[in-house]
């Protein structure tokens, strides 16, 4: 018997099928419904923005990894996912280079410069989106002088409408809850249909990529606080980046706490921040800022919620027999 070519690797010898690549691909799949709704409303503007961001993401990742002399990791879909997420955070009619710049910052700076997937502290897509908002005045200054190359695919009649969230803030008459939930154009592409996002989220639950702790704690906190402050919670839940944030951004593996307990704390804190932003501060991007702020607290949350080992005498308290002996030893 030829035993020269036996495979010799350490245990365990079985492996669950799930890989990071598959998980990332699944998230992209989960974003297809909302992308389709966006394309339905915004036509080629949406297609163009999504394409720009995903291509930028791929190029940025290739270049950064080349410069850092690392192997290409495009195959893990994480860059493409970030590109798609960034695109969905913009209105379809936003300047294309804004999307490109946000994507570049997301993939190049927020992810690759931090050590690549797994080492980033902030959600890359949100980081890129928010960076562009913060940098907007400077960008505008440069943009008006050098970079005015607007894409033009014909008029889309919805673009000039106020976003539902702004309407809420200004006390304007609101579209019906049902309409807001199913599909209502306005604001960023991801905001057009909470229903489509929910469909995608259901798929992620089904595939086991996300758990209920973060989305439920965010949405419940927002709903309760909205009620307390005398507002219709449904308007808060179905507008702005709420669903994208709660189901797709805050649940990002890399940038959320590692235990269920930590994730609950994380979600509640995000919910509180969102209401503070929405009720007290600017009416836009409250979700993005809230998640990014809480991203910064993740190491602290993990530390505070650190569980103790199964065999640690402290875990079983005084009822555990033999405890005296164990503590006397240590």
């Amino acid at each position: 018997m030829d035993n020269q070519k036996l495979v010799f690797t350490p245990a365990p010898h079985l492996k669950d099928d799930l890989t990071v690549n598959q998980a990332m691909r699944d998230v992209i799949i989960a974003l297809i419904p909302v992308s389709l709704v966006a394309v339905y409303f915004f036509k080629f503007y949406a297609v163009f923005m999504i394409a720009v961001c995903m291509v930028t993401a791929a190029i940025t990742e290739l270049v950064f990894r080349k410069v850092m002399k690392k192997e290409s990791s495009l195959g893990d879909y994480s860059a493409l996912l970030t590109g798609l997420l960034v695109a969905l955070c913009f209105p379809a009619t936003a300047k294309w280079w804004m999307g490109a710049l946000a994507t570049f910052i997301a993939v190049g700076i927020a992810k690759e410069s931090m050590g690549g997937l797994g080492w980033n502290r902030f959600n890359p897509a949100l980081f890129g989106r928010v960076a562009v908002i913060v940098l907007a005045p400077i960008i505008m200054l440069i943009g008006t002088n050098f970079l005015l190359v607007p894409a033009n695919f014909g008029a889309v009649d919805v673009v000039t409408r106020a976003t539902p969230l702004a309407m809420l803030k200004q006390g304007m008459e609101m579209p019906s809850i049902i309409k807001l939930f199913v599909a209502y154009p306005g604001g960023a592409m991801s905001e057009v249909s909470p229903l489509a996002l929910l469909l995608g989220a259901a798929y992620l639950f089904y595939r086991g990529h996300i758990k209920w702790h973060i989305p439920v704690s965010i949405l419940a906190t927002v709903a309760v606080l909205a009620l307390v402050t005398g507002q219709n919670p449904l308007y808060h839940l179905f507008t702005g980046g709420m669903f994208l944030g709660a189901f797709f951004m805050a649940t990002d593996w890399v940038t959320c706490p590692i235990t269920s307990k930590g994730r609950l704390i994380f979600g509640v804190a995000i919910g509180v921040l969102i209401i503070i932003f929405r009720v007290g501060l600017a009416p836009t991007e409250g979700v993005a800022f809230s998640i990014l702020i809480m991203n910064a607290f993740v190491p602290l949350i993990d530390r505070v919620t650190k569980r103790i080992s199964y065999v640690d005498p402290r875990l079983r308290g005084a009822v555990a027999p033999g405890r005296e002996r164990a503590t006397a030893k240590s």
Partner: protein
Amino acid sequence: MEVKTFKDGGAHVPHYKSFTEDKPITRMDAPEEVIIPLSQHLGAPNEPLVKVGDKVEVGQKIGEVDEFISAPVHASISGTVTAIEPRPAYTGGEIMSIVIKNDGGPQEFVSKEKRDPDKMTIEELREAIRDAGIVGMGGAAFPTHANISVKKPVEYLVLNGAECEPFLTCDHRQMLERPYELVEGARILMRTIESKKCRIGIEENKPDAIAAVAEKARGYDGIEVVPLAVKYPQGNKDQLIEATTGKYSIRGVRSADVGCLVRNVGTTIACYDAVVHGKPSMERVVTVSGPTVPRCGNYIIKIGTKIGHVLKECGVDDLDGYKVVLGGPMTGMAVSDLESGVVKGTTGILVLPPDMVREEVAYSSCVRCGKCVDHCPMLLYPNQLSIYAEAEMYDELMEWDVMDCMECGICSYICPAQRPIVHLIRMVKPTIRKMQRAAAGK
């Protein structure tokens, strides 16, 4: 009956038991030659009692040492000792072994007398078990007589019939085919540790075994079969104790001092054979399995039979690109040398075909998905441990309780980034042990 389990972590792992679960135990013919390692247990290695050229009988003691934590070894076939020299061990490297050439005579062990355990003293029971060289047959291979030599009575005897490792069915078949011996063996062990209660934990995917053992246990007060949920690692000592008795293991405390003594069901049956028939540990039931193995089964195999011989008997010839695993696929060891022999702790010989073999892929950074944390039955942070282990950050490893890891392998099994977490942990443990000893010595 109420199904019990442990609370924290664990995972559902595919069973792959259908290959052999319905195959009755059969005897594999004695090979031409056996290679019996002088040390097949945890503890002091044995000294040979025979020399080259000696004739030996089936069951004759051929190696022993005068140390408490040790177990003698016995000839598994009758024949001539042809060599006493280092031979390949399945753990890698070589180990001093006694080679016996088959003389073609009868190779079955014949009991000389039948003893009544109820008429034997505890000392005699322990001595019979020691003399027979019984060690933990679930894979741990700790000398059983050392386990059952307790200073004060132990509340529970817990028998491990969970067999939570995929593929393995040797315990299942033994429980099904020899429930009487199992229950009588349990009574022997209960006497040796002066225990009034015995819990036999069996995963509920073996309803026939549960029924068979429960039937035999009916007449005895205190002996109870506990059906367990099918969840890996249900058969690990700590999880089994929790599921069957509601007690918890504590770091640095022997389970006997928590009120539980855990033994494998196969070991228990071996103890019965040793006490009643004087039969030494010279053969054992081994599951030979794998999707491509022509004659899978549960075989009684002589200790020292070469793995290559067993596979040939089962119809396996081409192994190019395959992986051969001794034990279960979650914790067992891949073998590099088919010349090494079956030992007392060998539960299974598995042949994993290329499409099941996990190639050594380039793994990526931890993406903090938290799956290993969710599933770790020891409530550790395997993700952190793997990162610290890669960086050889020993202080952090100790702070995060790396030594509490019992290496069930769920973390590596589940990790989407393909990180060999448990392997990384295994690699740093010797260094940590050394550091802890040095610190204790100060």
